[in-house]
């Protein structure tokens, strides 16, 4: 069964002067245990698409269903908290929290007891290769690659079955970028998560199970 299903999804940006059709009639399904790469030029609508998949915004028209349920009818706070984790190019860690606290934060939001949250967070940080010495550091004290790994650990800690990543390697050097991709691949193939990565990086696309190409808001082709 498809984790996510898009049916004629469109998204328009409107301002005083014009309407931009960022995403136009996109239909697709996303399966668990698969690593998807969405590629396309800047302005092709791939990030807008990811924003909708993450429940950060709703489509102007069309439907997105998660495990058969329309996102519009779902509690999207809960959807983001428990089912869809997002990894951003800008990492978007909370600067006032330590590495460990950043990973614990969504867990505690979902009501996980603190001790359990800390234990789980430590596990996930370890899984992304961040040892204990990093736990009490603040994001500003980490390199880009390290921050991105914290962001991934935060996504993993949520135990979400849907991992959405927007240019996760965009700010990283090749080595760190590859580490991140490997973690994401592992998530898809071992944890049976549905991983959708928006990227310009063709090397990531080359490692993906499915590559989706966006152009002018439309999904042009699907390659495997």
């Amino acid at each position: 069964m498809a984790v996510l299903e898009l049916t004629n999804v469109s998204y328009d940006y409107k301002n005083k002067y014009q309407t931009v059709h960022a995403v136009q009639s996109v239909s697709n399904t996303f399966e668990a245990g698969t690593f998807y790469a969405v590629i396309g030029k800047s302005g092709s609508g791939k990030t807008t698409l990811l924003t909708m998949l993450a429940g950060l915004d709703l489509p102007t028209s069309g439907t997105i269903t998660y495990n058969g349920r329309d996102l519009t009818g779902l509690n999207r706070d809960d959807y983001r908290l428990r089912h869809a984790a997002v990894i951003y190019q800008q990492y978007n860690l909370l600067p006032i929290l330590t590495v460990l606290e950043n990973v614990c934060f969504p867990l505690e939001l979902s009501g996980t007891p603190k001790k359990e949250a800390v234990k789980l967070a430590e596990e996930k940080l370890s899984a992304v290769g961040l040892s204990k010495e990093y736990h009490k550091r603040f994001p500003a004290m980490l390199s880009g690659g390290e921050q991105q790994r914290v962001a991934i650990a935060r996504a993993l800690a949520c135990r979400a079955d849907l991992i959405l990543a927007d240019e996760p390697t965009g700010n990283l050097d090749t080595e760190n970028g590859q580490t991140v991709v490997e973690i994401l691949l592992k998530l898809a193939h071992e944890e049976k998560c549905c991983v959708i990565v928006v990227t310009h990086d063709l090397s990531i696309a080359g490692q993906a199970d499915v590559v989706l190409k966006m152009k002018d808001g439309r999904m042009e082709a699907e390659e495997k």
Partner: protein
Amino acid sequence: MAVWQYIGRSLRRRPVSRIILGAIGLVIVILLCVLEGVCFEQKKELAQVETMPIQVGISDKRGEKKEGLALSEQELSHIRDTTSLGACLTDEVLRWTGKLVWLEGYGERPKEGASVSRQYTLIGISSLKAAPELTEEEEIQIAYEGISGRTIFSSITPICLMGEQRIVELGKSPGDTVGAIFKTEDGWYETELVIGGVIGGSGAEIKEIYCGWEALQYLQLAAESRGTQTVDSLKQEGLYHYLTDRYSAVIKDNGSLMGFKAVAKRYYSAVDPLASVEERGLALTVYDSLYQSTTKELKKNIRFLDGLRPVLWVAAGGICFLAGFLAARSRRREIAVIRSLGAGKFRVFLILVLEQVMLALLGTAIGLGGYLLFGGKSLPKVWEIVLILILYLAGTVAPALRLMGDKKLAILMKKD
């Protein structure tokens, strides 16, 4: 993570920006405190000045007074014909000063520069009664003696002031009438005098009663109508001296001073120092130059401070709103991150608002504490502080509500 824990971390880990925000509240509160304090001091001083005794004097020694109002001979005669100068004055003194009046210069003429004050209570005014000829000398109860004539509460009714001791002796109390007999050259005349006041203090032992000069005037006219001289004293010392050697009162309510002066002016005209003694008439002097100069300055200051208050309020309100607004707005991404991680709008709203409330309260407390520590005396009113806090919070809530919308979460996808 509980809301409070997050707020705690936020306050601990952003000390500089938090301190700046708190300091804004602090500075504003101190400014308001100072303004309030200065205003309070000025008003207190004004209140003290407004209750300072202002002497109102009537004198026929007009040349000695630099300021004052005097009654022309013509006006005096007019008043004599229709009503009484003393009555006018008494009524006005009563109206503007209330019951409590000080008479200065009562009794023995004070030495140059000396001032003797005694307190009297005016009871009221009753109507004039006829003074039938006395037929039986035994009925004389109180004889009007001497020509003191110095301290007189006048009215068209014969009111008298009496020493406490005398009142006790007579078994009377203020407001009662006493029979009085006046001796003239051609005999005795009887009238009734209302005990208008008690001479207390060192005047308590005084046994004489002092009646209004109208009563004397009445007697004088009565005597003249009989083709006789008036009372001995008048004959000896003359009317003016008799009437108004010195009569002064203190206006209790200085706020009414101008009203009193305006009314008094109807009865008195400017003194003409070149006029002969006979033509000078009576002078009313309100010794208020110090009062006027002091209050003028104080009122000017208070007007300025009162004018400054709304300006400061607008500025304070604007700054508080802006501080809250900028503080919340600078956390756009943070709010979006928290929301994207699944925190509900209400939880995020609570984080922002409670944090700002704590900062605002902290800043206010430090501001007030600092102000009091440095000798501040008057605090702003509670509603003023509450209003400042509300403005501060309004500045937080307005952007917070806006930033919490789902549409704003797209900021997370922006690549700087």
